[in-house]
Every structure is written in C-alpha cells, then in structure tokens.
C-alpha cells in the first residue's frame, strides 16, 4: 500500500514535469514546476526525511516567488523555437558527454557491492562512529557536517559564486571608460 502510494505520486510528479516543459504560457508552466517541487515534498514526508523536507519547502517557495516576479517583468509567452542550429548543437554535445559519463559510470559501478546485498554496510559504520566519536544526537547533521564536511564547504562556495555572478551581471557601475560611451 505504502509503495503504491509513492509510485502514484511519482507518476503525478513526472506528468507535472512534462507539462512544465511543454506549456506555452509561462505562468502556468511555473505553476506546474511548483507542483513538481511540492509533490517531492509530500514524497519526502512519507519517506520520513524531515531535513530534506524543510530545505525543499523553503527553496521551492523562494523559487516560485522570484520566477513569478521575473515573468511579470519580462514576457508571459514562451517564444523559443526548437530544432534550430543553436538548440541542436548544445543538446547533441550534452548527449555525447552523457554517453561518456554513463560508460565510465558503468565501469566504476562494477566494484560496488551487489544491490541490497549487505543491507547496512556503510550506514552501520556511521551509526557506530557518530555516537562514539562525534557525540551529536542528530546523525544526519553529523554526517553532513563531519564525514562529508567537504560537501558542505562546496555548497557554501557555490552560494558565494552565485552572488558573485549575479553582482557581476547586474552591477550598477561599469568600467570607467565604458561608462562615457
């Protein structure tokens, strides 16, 4: 019963994602996109992952607000034409690199243990070490901030890169020579 519910919800989310890509009206496309996000929130609630739920919920709300603002200020109809040369070349390059990635991924996956064979091979080590060595009660945060702290560091660097990029594109003053033109 539980798995059937999750599968039905995943199909619902997939349909909403396809609708978000195919719709011509941009506002309804954003609505479909937020259906994808909030559907994922409900799936995460049923999978008992409160950490992911809170992050997903807040990011989804912020994305919705800023996308609606952007669409209000610019255009409301999707006018891009598919299958021109400018669209085909990046898509084909993406497919090429995806195939290379899949080949190397399959090559690297052979050393992993068989699927579902030792059920808690990695997580049992984490559970033992968190209580014995680190002493944090919330195991998920202990993994994110200690065993995988490098991951978190890269997340922070990504946010910093994001606002440096936004500041570069939307800066008020250009260079001194370019301003006089």
């Amino acid at each position, binding site marked *: 019963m539980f798995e059937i519910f999750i599968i039905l919800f995943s199909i619902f989310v997939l349909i909403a994602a396809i609708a978000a890509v195919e719709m011509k009206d941009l506002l309804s496309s954003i609505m479909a996109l937020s259906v994808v996000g909030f559907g994922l929130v409900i799936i995460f609630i049923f999978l008992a992952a*409160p*950490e992911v739920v*809170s*992050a997903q919920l*807040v*990011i989804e*709300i*912020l994305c919705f*607000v*800023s996308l609606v603002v952007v669409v209000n*200020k*610019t255009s409301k109809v999707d006018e891009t034409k598919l299958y021109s040369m400018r669209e085909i070349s990046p898509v084909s390059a993406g497919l090429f690199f995806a195939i290379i990635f899949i080949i190397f991924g399959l090559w690297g996956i052979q050393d992993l243990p068989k699927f579902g064979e030792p059920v808690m091979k990695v997580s049992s080590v984490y559970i033992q070490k968190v*209580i014995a*060595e*680190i*002493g*944090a*009660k*919330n195991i*998920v*945060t*202990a993994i*994110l*901030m*200690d065993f995988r*702290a*490098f991951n*978190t*560091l890269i*997340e*922070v*660097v990504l*946010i*910093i890169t*994001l*606002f440096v990029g*936004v*500041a570069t594109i*939307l800066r*008020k003053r250009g260079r001194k020579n370019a301003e006089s033109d």
Partner: protein
Amino acid sequence: MPRVIKILTNYVIGPIITFGVYVFVFGHLLPGEGFDGGMIVASIFILCIIVYGKEEMEKRISIGNAVFISVFSGILIIIMGFVGILGLRFEHKYYLDNFLSQGTFSHLFSGGTVPIFNILVGLSITFGFYAIFAYLSEYKTVDKINNGLDYTDFKK
C-alpha cells in the same frame, strides 16, 4: 504595499528569525541544519525587501556587510578545515576533521565542530541569499511599452 501587509509583517519578523536561528543553532540535536535555518532567516529578509522596499532594508543591513559576512564565514570554514589537518583529537588527519572534544551527549555543547560548522553555514547562506535578492531587486523595468526592455535604476 498596503498597510495591512506591513503590520502583519511586523508581527511575523521576530518569531520567524528566532525559529531560523533556533534551527541552525540546535542543528546537531534536532531535525534541520545550517542550510535549512539559513534559508528560513533569508526568506524573512526577502519578505522585508518586498514589503518595505530595498532602500529601507539597506539602512539596516547594507549589501557590502552582507557579502562580507557571507564570504568571511566561508573563509572561516576553510581555516577550520586546515586546523583539522593537524590531527589534534584522532589518529587520522583529514581536511575538515573534528578537533574539539565531544562533550556530554544530547546537550547544546556537544558534537565537537559540528555546531560551529552549522552556525557558519547558516550565516553564510542567510546573508548570501539576502545579497542575491538585494542585487536582483535593484533594477526594474520602466516604460515597457515605449522603450522595450529598458532597465533603469530605482534612484534615477
């Protein structure tokens, strides 16, 4: 913005900032971590930008200070990673290793460097998203019909 929304925002600011800071300070004991708490505090800052306008908000927190706090807490995480290489507590010497004592279990001061990383990540995410939205709200379209896409300043 209508006056009703301003008054409602006044009531909401305090509890939500307290809740967000609570999420990332107690991240090692309760669900949620630095990223989630930082996003909650950032969302209330963004609400303030939308309701009161960017100029009112910049009197309280200027963009320069926000960028400084965000980058500085990122740099502090990198420096703490280099302290972890020294191997003060364990045999192994990793980058970003835990070098403080673990404290009493399920108390606020426990978990070694985990709560410190939580607070630093929370500050970085909060002021980073605030800076992004403040930069984005600096520009708006004026006279869309006449000039097409003409981006001009708020101040001019």
